């Protein structure tokens, strides 16, 4: 088996294309969890925004309206989650699971009602986002290495891919170099101190949830409008949980979380490449087993790192103002 058989180039490119789903969701999770709210409900928000984006994009034949609608729905769900976690002081884990299951059912029922295709939306066709061709692609196409990097690795992506990668430094800046970020982290680590300093813990956490909802919607929109070109029942397939794991892996820090997302994106890419390929020693690995890889890695990562990782101290604990 030669080097070309591994399709290293296409693995790298599809890593870049797989990662945005996780990056958007993981950055969303970062905001929620650094403010002290556990966000198991990423999965449900991805699913809801994926469906709404696809449905609206198909109906209006405009992907941008789809994305906007997805943002609205995901933000609304995040605020409901915030209401349970912050105002109601309910169990945040249960709330997240409830949202995931509700959305799994609701998206199917509504998709079936509108499109009658077994919980699928029709193919978006022209309503998908167009890929951006970087200037000079034609000129550089034949240059070895640089041409490949410019036209395949950096170029020919949709705007959402660039947004995802640009988001990482932006989130880092917001969390560590703005007043809002400092307050948000304070609410996640020691809400009572934040409260004593005159910060409204509730308002900060609501703000964090709103941002989380908006960011998470791009993950769903990317999944439906860019990657697949349609909505499919339960199409998120655990992406929300993988994003959470990437966050644990990254110690709740943007750059390391980003690396975690790339890692899972890489496994997804390898999975597609390995399917149906004869490998030395092991032979052909069945697709079902390769599908397990990201989940097994998640378990191993959590088992290896959870003890050492530093979660925000007040995570999952409703803030009760002491009198």
């Amino acid at each position, binding site marked *: 088996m030669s080097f070309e058989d591994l399709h290293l180039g296409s693995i790298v490119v599809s890593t870049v294309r797989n990662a945005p789903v996780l990056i958007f969701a993981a950055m969303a999770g970062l905001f929620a969890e650094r403010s002290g709210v556990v966000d198991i409900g990423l999965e449900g928000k991805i699913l809801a925004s994926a469906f709404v984006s696809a449905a609206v994009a198909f109906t209006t034949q405009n992907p941008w309206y789809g994305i906007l609608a997805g943002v609205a729905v995901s933000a609304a769900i995040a605020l409901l989650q915030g209401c349970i976690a912050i105002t109601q002081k309910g169990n945040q884990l249960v709330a997240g699971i409830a949202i995931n299951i509700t959305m799994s059912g609701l998206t199917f029922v509504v998709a079936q009602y509108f499109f009658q295709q077994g919980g699928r939306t029709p193919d978006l066709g022209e309503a998908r986002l167009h890929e951006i061709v970087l200037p000079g692609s034609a000129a550089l196409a034949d240059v070895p290495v640089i041409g490949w990097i410019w036209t395949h690795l950096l170029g020919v992506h949709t705007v959402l891919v660039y947004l995802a990668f640009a988001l990482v430094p932006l989130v880092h800046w917001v969390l560590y170099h703005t007043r809002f970020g400092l307050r948000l982290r304070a609410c996640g680590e020691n809400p009572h101190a934040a409260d004593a300093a005159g910060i409204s813990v509730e308002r900060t956490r609501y703000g964090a949830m709103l941002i989380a909802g908006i960011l998470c919607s791009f993950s769903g929109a990317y999944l439906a409008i860019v990657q697949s070109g349609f909505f499919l029942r339960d199409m998120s*397939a655990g992406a929300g949980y993988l994003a959470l794991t990437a966050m644990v892996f990254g110690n709740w820090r943007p750059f390391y979380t980003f690396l975690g997302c790339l890692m899972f994106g890489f496994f997804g890419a390898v999975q597609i490449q390995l399917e149906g390929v004869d490998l030395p020693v092991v032979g052909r690995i069945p697709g079902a087993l390769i599908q397990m890889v990201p989940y097994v890695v998640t378990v191993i990562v959590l088992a290896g790192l959870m003890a050492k990782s530093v979660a925000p101290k007040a995570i999952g604990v409703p803030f009760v103002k002491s009198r």
Partner: protein
Amino acid sequence: MTTNDMPRWATGIVLPLLNLLSALLVTALVIHLLGEDPVESMQILINSAVVNPEGLAYTLFYASTFVFTGLAVSVAMQAGLFNIGAEGQMYLGGLGITLAMLAFDATLPWYLLIPAGVVGAALFGALWGFIPGYLQAKRGSHIVVTTIMFNFIAASLMNFVIVRFLIPAGEQNTASRVFSAGAELPRLSDWFPILGDTPLNISVFLAIIALAVYGVMVSRSSWGYKLRATGLNKHAAHYAGVKISTTIIVTMLISGALAGLGAVNSIMGSTHYLSLNFVGGAGFIGIAIALMGRQHPVGIFLSALLFGALTQGGFDLSLEKPNIPPEMVILIQGLIILFCGAMEYLYAPVLIKLIKGKQA
């Protein structure tokens, strides 16, 4: 008065009922928005799931499985563990049954074969619960995420095992071969012909026994005391001499075994073979049941009946009302988890005011 010192009838009966009602009201709203009549739908559902004897048999049949998954989630919840993995544990339980049957169904008589299947189900389910339990106890990996991952892993693994090893040569259907007649659990319709050709079988009695054992063990045994102490306050329990990590691991073993036993009803009582995705969400329904039934045996029983009726009635409803697919049950389940679990004290302030008003 705070939510903690509300009377037991208020927190144990009135609040769960109000929450359930809210979930059903939201469902009614969704049905209305889909252009169907919620009242008429409710009538169809009740007719099909309760009034009609065959429907009632199906309701009880589904409920017997749900009792086990509900118990699985409940017992873990008692120890403060949120086991999302009943789905995967039941799936693996099905594999346990199948391996036992494929090995013995030609040789053993029925009175050994059926226990072999039950043991196989419990063993494999327990194994699938053990790993997340061990990782939580020893490595601190969060049980919620690990059990969710184990659901995904179970789905892929079973897909692989069924397709690669269990499909008989020449067959296309993604299922194992049919087991011999000795492995079939006796059906109640053999004694009560009014039940018609329904799969309701003796597992419904197994479910009731399991509920009773659960009730006694959790609230009347020293093990149950340790279990609840761990769930209420891990540090206090540890200080009192309870071995937290052992409790967690044992609880997850039991939880997994109970979920695995859910497969006995589905496979040995009904299909008599292992098929792809036979669990069909019963594990997730267990979460809703545990939260709605407040982990109390009677509550679990009633919630399991409700979900049995919703599954059976929902299926018939989808035949008459094409806009209400059977997946509506998933939505209801999510809403029940939302209202009975996450927002369980939504109505507490109002209720407290009412109680206080009466006393004054």
